[in-house]
């Protein structure tokens, strides 16, 4: 069964691009344009992993991450941000990994593959 990845990003182009890239890798990809939508989709879609942007209108990604940890304690979350500065924010330690956005998604894809492999042994 395909693993499901939830991509959370306010930029439509990034959502579409990541959906395409990760679908090509064999994942079932669903997307959310805001943290509030993402929290809802975590309950309804039951993703195996979340990629989370930080700078979004409304609630930011780090605040969403804290809420995710309350509702789905062990759900893998990878922060995928254009800014590296948030890496030193203590809230970011609750993420499995922190990837700085670039045109090349190799690091993100490798990390997703690595984290999802823990579950399947």
């Amino acid at each position, binding site marked *: 069964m395909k693993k499901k990845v939830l991509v959370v990003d306010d930029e439509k182009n990034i959502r579409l691009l990541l959906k395409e890239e990760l679908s090509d890798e064999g994942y079932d990809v669903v997307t959310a344009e805001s943290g509030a939508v993402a929290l809802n989709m975590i309950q309804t879609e039951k993703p195996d992993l979340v990629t989370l942007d930080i700078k979004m209108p409304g609630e930011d990604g780090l605040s969403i991450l*804290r809420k995710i940890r309350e509702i789905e*304690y062990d759900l*893998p979350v990878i922060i995928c941000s254009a800014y590296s500065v948030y890496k030193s924010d*203590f809230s970011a*330690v609750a993420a499995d990994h922190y990837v700085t956005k670039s045109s090349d998604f190799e690091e993100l894809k490798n990390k997703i593959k690595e984290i999802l492999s823990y579950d399947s042994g």
Partner: protein
Amino acid sequence: MGDSKAPQVDHASALDDRAKERLQHIRTADIIVGIPSYNNADSIGRVIKAIDLGLAKYFSDKKSIILISEGGDLSGTIDAVDALKDKHYFESSFIAKPSSYTEILVTKYRGTSGKGTAVKAIFEAAKMLNVQAGAMLDSDLRSISPEWIELLISPIIYKDFGFVTPYYSRHKYDGTITNMIAFPMTWSLYGRRVRQPIGGDFGFSLGLIHSLLSKDVWETDIARFGIDIWMTTVAICENFKICQSFLGAKIHDDKDPGKDLSPMFKQVVGTIFGLMKIYPDNWLQIKGSRPTAIFGFESEVAPKPINIDAENMINKFKQSVPECMPVWKKVLGEENCRKLEEVSRMEPQLFEMPVDLWIKSLFDFALAYNLRVDGLKPEQVIETLVPVYYAITASFVRRTQNLDSHQAEEVITNQCSFFEKLKPYLVERWESET
């Protein structure tokens, strides 16, 4: 299994009859805050005030108890508590006095002398009172504030966590046993990134207390300084929900690792190693690592600088080589032993312990401790690890002397990832020798 009640084992109580009588009279409470103490009359007053104010500010609707579990001079601690009986500190705090004051109990614990037994007395009291949540705070804290109480207890009461560990802003050279061993070993063995597994200030649920009290460990190093890492490891291995709370700076009575940390080192590391044999299924199969939830508000505080005498540690390492080498030859893989010998011959000004050598050596020591290689006693193994720990700590100080605490933190985190990568070395050796 989480918060399910574990079967009870009958051990001698750490509470004396007088304390039990008092607790029976109190009957129940919602919250207990315990302070394990050993002759800390000078600093404990400040800790009690912060706890009392925190309970009044954040949990005024709850019935709370403060219990000081003393291992040293009881009269000094009682005097320190008596000095607070007028509760004048409420008047200058802008925190409303509660309708009924929190009761403060002082007891001298019974049993093996050490922090773990002091904690056991607190757990027994928590169980007797059937509390909803508890917290434990070190008695030598200088930086505690009332907010710590909220941060350690709220995740238990309102978010259903079983164990809350602290997350401090610490100077890069504060907590070297944590940074060099406890944090990376917890990360790599059990796959859980808990930044301060031996922090000393924790929040806990009643379910966790039941589980901890059910174990027959109170005559071991767990009754001493092994208590903190034991609690963290049990919470991880028995699937209690764990989170971290950001408490700000930790300022306490600091210690130079090269001077007076030896007993603590042996008890903490001995417990880490010993637990590997108790929970093999919880680490041999674990791949990768998972983060831990975190609460709180990050304040930009500059932790108090800690000075470490790296030269002293390098000298201690070099001086110990002739005495330790016969044991190292039995404990370490051939290549690791040769490399360690090379390191010992380095000029002090060029001295450096490679990180991979440290990790593999530590794994070798863990193996020797548990598998009694060549008839070595566990105490001998730990004893001869101390100089190697001095070597890596001195090397860390050298590598990070020009880095700020954030940059040094990245070095520590990278080191943890390196532990994770080298874990197959330990697993292979363990599986081939058991």
